[in-house]
């Protein structure tokens, strides 16, 4: 019997990579769920091409899934993977530059044919030319071993080859001492419903992969990542898109409103529609409109009729919705617009992440058109951000823009499931009193009454033409127009009254303050924590509210010698901060369709520290 060693690691980052038809996203998801159940903290990053099936074996068709699991708090999917499972030469070519020196490389040797090597752009075989000497390479004939393991099931060759991802998963389970139970149950319960034969084969492949790790001589080490210390509670793993959907569902319950989602499919936002369309038993109405404009317009109609109205989209769709957003602003109706940002401009990089719609969200409409903008910071935080968006929309009778991004939308993390009866309710008041009813009268928040069709005696007309103050009648009067522009602006400004004081993580004053927003939270927090650990006087502020900004933000910014603003754009928040607070904010930018690495943030902050 071969001797196998078990090593304890604090954390590990694993990346599965293969052709877009190789099932890497499924493999990654299975590993993630098993890891979550094992009690580790984790973060994931699926990275896939825009094409559903790019030509097999090419660089363009490589799909990857990275997972960071730890016995400590995890903020990001990990800068550089410790382990890379590459199912073909193209996957190796694309992902090898990210692998840590000395990292583990598991390669599916069957795919390293001359033809595939050439397709991936290799002049010689990296398995033979010594170019992988800096890594711990495990060449495994994953395809061949899979076919052998499932030969008696009787699948055709094509279907049989497709089981190889479960062999790889089984092998990875062995290497990181993960139990097989979760995946076995998934195969038996979910996969078997669709295709019993394939389920039988995949089950065999999974077990064969695991057994191979146990017996093959090349594998001498396996690893254990102890459970993380996590706050007590009931958990599940959710993606950002799921977080948004569940947050809206919770807001529906907390407000007592009926929910309506009007939307048009667009990457990477479509999953929100997929999720919400499952909740018909809870009364959720989803409307797949004929286009982006109809998506938001139908939601405006639902808001007018008294619904919790939502539309979801990504950058190009937000551009199409601009005119209708302004209608909602003019009608002063509550509406949540979720923009899952992706690489732009134009069609841009549909499946890649970016934060470049901030200016569009703040300013991309005609006229003086202030709309509250908030952003989510992590997949789990999408839940809270969605509730916050609904809360603001209803209290101030306004459309609200919620920004997430492709990284948050598809990435996942363990999420502590809240008890709804412990969350504050979202108060809703429908106006019913005909005496003295003024469609554009206002309360102390400057919100107008919500008077919905069906209420006797409140029949009134609203529209996109300028409104006379109080009555809401059409008015072309110049003085009234200026008053209304100022009232609409002041209404949004007053939302700052409910924004909690800015949370400063790290030094309360000092050398460098890193200000971020949205999905860069994890990388910034981890980078800043590293520098704090090294004794630097640095801090991190992460903005939830981008319009209006927190009332105390200016004072916080002025407590630091330098303000550094890392963004996945060419400097949009930094522009805003310079404009608003007259500070010399330094921009740190990246627009490569990829999230920041922790190390990139740490290096950028260090560079600023050195310049002080």
């Amino acid at each position, binding site marked *: 019997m071969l001797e196998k060693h078990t090593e304890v690691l604090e954390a590990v980052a694993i990346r599965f990579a293969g052709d877009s038809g190789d099932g890497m996203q499924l493999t990654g998801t299975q590993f993630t769920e098993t890891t979550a*159940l094992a009690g580790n903290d984790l973060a994931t990053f699926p990275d896939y091409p825009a094409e559903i099936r790019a030509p097999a074996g090419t660089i363009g068709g490589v799909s990857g899934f990275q997972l960071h699991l730890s016995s400590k708090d995890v903020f990001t999917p990990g800068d550089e993977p410790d382990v890379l499972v590459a199912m073909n030469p193209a996957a190796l070519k694309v992902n090898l530059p990210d692998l840590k020196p000395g990292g583990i490389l598991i390669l599916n040797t069957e795919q390293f044919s001359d033809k595939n090597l050439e397709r991936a752009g290799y002049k010689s075989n990296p398995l033979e030319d010594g170019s992988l000497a800096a890594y711990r390479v495990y060449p495994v004939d994953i395809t061949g071993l899979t076919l052998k393991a499932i030969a008696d099931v009787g699948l055709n060759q094509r279907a049989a080859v497709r089981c190889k991802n479960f062999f790889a998963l089984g092998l990875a389970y062995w290497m990181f001492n993960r139990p097989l139970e979760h995946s076995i149950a998934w195969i038996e319960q979910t996969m078997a419903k669709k295709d019993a034969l394939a389920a039988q084969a995949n089950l065999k492949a999974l077990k064969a992969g695991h057994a191979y790790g146990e017996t093959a001589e090349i594998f001498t080490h396996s690893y254990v990542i102890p459970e993380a210390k996590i706050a007590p509670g009931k958990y599940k793993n959710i993606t950002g898109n799921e977080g948004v959907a569940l947050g809206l569902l919770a807001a529906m319950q907390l407000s007592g409103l009926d929910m309506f989602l009007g939307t048009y499919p667009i990457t990477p936002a479509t999953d929100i529609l997929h999720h919400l369309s499952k909740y018909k038993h809870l009364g959720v109405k989803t409307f797949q409109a004929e286009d982006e404009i*109809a998506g938001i*317009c139908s939601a405006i109609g639902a808001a007018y009729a008294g619904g919790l109205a939502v539309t979801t989209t990504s950058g190009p769709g937000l551009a199409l919705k601009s005119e209708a957003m302004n209608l909602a602003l003019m009608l002063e109706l509550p509406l949540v617009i979720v923009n899952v940002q992706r690489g732009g401009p134009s069609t841009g990089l549909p499946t890649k992440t970016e934060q470049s719609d901030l200016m569009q969200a703040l300013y991309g409409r005609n006229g003086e058109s202030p709309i509250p903008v908030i952003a989510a910071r992590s997949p789990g935080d999408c839940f809270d951000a969605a509730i916050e968006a609904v809360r603001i929309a209803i209290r101030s009778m306004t459309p609200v823009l919620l920004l997430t991004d492709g990284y948050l939308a598809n990435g996942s993390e363990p999420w502590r*499931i809240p008890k709804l009866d412990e969350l504050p309710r979202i108060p809703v008041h429908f106006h019913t009193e005909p005496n003295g009813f003024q469609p554009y009268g206002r309360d102390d928040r400057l919100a107008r009454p919500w008077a919905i*069709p069906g209420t006797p005696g409140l029949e009134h007309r609203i529209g996109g033409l300028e409104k006379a103050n109080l009555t809401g009648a*059409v008015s072309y009067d110049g003085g009234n127009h200026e008053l209304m522009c100022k009232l609409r602006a002041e209404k949004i400004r007053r939302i700052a009254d409910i924004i909690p004081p800015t949370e400063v993580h790290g030094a309360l004053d000092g050398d460098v303050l890193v200000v971020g927003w949205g999905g860069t939270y994890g990388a910034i927090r981890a980078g800043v924590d590293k520098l704090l650990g090294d004794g630097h006087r640095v801090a991190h502020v992460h903005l939830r509210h981008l319009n209006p900004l927190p009332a105390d933000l200016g004072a916080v910014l002025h407590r630091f010698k330098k303000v550094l603003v890392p963004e996945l754009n060419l400097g949009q928040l930094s522009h805003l901060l310079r404009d608003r607070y007259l500070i010399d904010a330094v921009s740190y930018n990246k627009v490569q369709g990829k999230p920041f690495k922790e190390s990139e943030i740490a290096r950028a902050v260090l560079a600023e520290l050195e310049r002080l």
Partner: protein
Amino acid sequence: MTASVYPTVPATDPSLLSKKDFQTEVDPRWCPGCGDYSILAQVQRILPELGIPKEQIVFISGIGCSSRFPYYMNTYGMHSIHGRAPAIASGVKTLRPGLSVWVVTGDGDALAIGGNHFIHALRRNMDLKILMFNNRIYGLTKGQYSPTSEQGKKTKSSPAGAPDYPFNPISVALSAEATFVARAADIDAKGLPAVLERAARHKGSAYIEIYQNCPIFNDGAHDYLTDRKTKAEHELRLEHGKPLRFGANGEKGIALDTRMQPVVVDVATYGEDRLLVHDEQNDSLAYFLSRLVHPAFPTPVGVFRCVERPSYEQLVEDQLTAARERKVASVQDALEAGETWTVA
């Protein structure tokens, strides 16, 4: 669950309503002689007869002269943005199927900028009453050719004549699978209220093309059909189950020739029993009738097509009901669904 946040005020009694109840204090601001005035009067005339409480009626419009309509109707109303009224109305109707939702639009609003929403609302059979005022011109922007202007029309934007070939709005609606399609002229005091009332009672999308005169930019575009002197020669009144006859004394008829082409025939010599008979449920006939175009043929008015098909919002309600019967679960259950684990 706590009590509903929605108002629980009882509905008003619709039997007490009269035309006056639907008039607003705002004076309409259409040009003198505009066909919109008579359409407004006819709509206000038929609404009290429908048995619908006033507070449950909603008028949604887009942009254009016709789209000022909601301001003059004492119901709930929204004057929205250009071309989008069917989409907004779809949201109202889907959320609140109990409301009576009307869309008022024009040839530019519905068929140019809003063409997409228009055809999709019809396809879904969303229970909306869509009144499309067709004056075959852009009025509010002061006289450019519209998607229904005749080819070669000289306007400010087409001094050499419009090169555009026009839509046939009835053919478009039929091709978009509309379940109720009708036509009437603005000043037809008999025909217009008749189709309005039938549209209101139709369950599903109801589309009425209303020939409307723009006295400023396209005066007399429909005179051949509305002028008392020429009307009888040019108007083909569609009546379900009746032969297609027109003329002052019904002396002319529509028949098919041997190549399946429409021909105008003299009823006395051709024989009434050989005329085409109108059937509102015959799709091919409806399309055939939509192709009878002035001046070669009389212009059909009345109901081209009226068929039953489940409406969109009803299908959505049915799905919700079925889902509730299949699965009893709370929002909290939804949050906790899937693979979970507990940390003590």
